[in-house]
């Protein structure tokens, strides 16, 4: 008789252990699924091969303690394998040697994390000391501090406007070269 009670007790304990274990597994599984869902919604916006994706980011390029450029962007995908980061709606501010600034904005952009070169695409606007440059694609070569574009470009300033097929703008020497179908109109205050 005593034996029966003992084995009954044992059975109850065992069953409750099994139920608890099952319950534990179930809850872990449920939590895990939630976490998984969350990250999958986040990762769905990340393209293939991305190491990291971030929203509303701020990045700077500093050399010898001097900030050369800083960038705000709506979102960024870092692709470690390709040493680059892809940005949406980047706004880049360049801090120039003569203490002036140039600002660059576009629909999207790519930064090469090794060379710190920047390529921007779509509604590209570059502002520097009263000059406004508009184009669809623009490359910035960091080590040479040069902007270049091979697509139609327009430049405006209060006293003149100009358009051409391509442009090359050297931030340090302040030299700008336009090539192909150059057309410009100049201010009124002068007479030929």
């Amino acid at each position, binding site marked *: 008789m005593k034996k029966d009670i003992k084995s009954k007790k044992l059975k109850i304990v065992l069953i409750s252990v099994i139920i608890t274990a099952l319950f534990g597994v179930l809850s872990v599984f449920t939590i895990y699924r939630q976490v998984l869902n969350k990250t999958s919604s986040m990762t769905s916006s990340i393209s293939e091969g991305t190491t990291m994706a971030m929203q509303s980011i701020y990045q700077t390029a500093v050399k010898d303690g001097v900030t050369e450029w800083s960038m705000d962007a709506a979102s960024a995908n870092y692709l470690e394998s390709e040493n680059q980061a892809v940005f949406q709606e980047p706004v880049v501010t360049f801090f120039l040697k003569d203490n002036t600034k140039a600002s660059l904005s576009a629909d999207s952009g790519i930064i090469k994390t090794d060379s710190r070169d920047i390529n921007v695409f779509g509604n590209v606007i570059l502002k520097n000391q009263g000059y406004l440059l508009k184009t669809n694609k623009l490359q910035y070569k960091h080590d040479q501090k040069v902007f270049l574009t091979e697509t139609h470009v327009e430049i405006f*300033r*209060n*006293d003149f406007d*100009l358009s*051409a097929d391509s442009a090359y703008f050297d931030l340090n*020497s*302040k*030299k*700008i*070269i*336009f*090539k*192909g*179908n*150059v*057309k*410009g*109109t*100049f*201010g*009124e*205050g*002068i*007479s*030929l």
Partner: protein
Amino acid sequence: GNGYCQTDSLPAKKGAEKERIHISAQSLVADDNEKYAEFIGNVKAVQGDTTINSESLKIYYEGQAEKQIKDQTDKSKNTPGQGQDSIKKIVATGSVKIKFDEIDAQAHEVIYTTIDRVLILNGPGAKVIKKGSGSTTANKITIYRDSGQIKFEGGVEGVFFPGQRDLN
């Protein structure tokens, strides 16, 4: 020898300054440190009735800083600091052809300074053709646009169309 000639209809119309200058070319190099912009290749510049065609057109301008300093020192001039660069000099080179007022001018190089509105045509073979009256060639031709005076220097040759009463 040298020669002068005075034309009545030369002084450029003052209103011309209000019209913008339209320039087209194959390429442009602009240097904000050196303050110049050079249009290169099939250059055409038009302002109202004045047209310049050349291989290259280099525009030297005064930066805002220099202009403001100049404006302050030159008290008599009350030009408000428009904060825009102003053109100081224009140099056209290579088969230069200029049309303005009643004149067609041709030269290898033409230098135009805006402060005094003087046009210098450097030859050899610089030529000024005045519609209906003739043409004069010289090594150097200076046109004073405000006074209408033209000075010819070196190798001056003129060809004039006889008026109603000819020589014989």
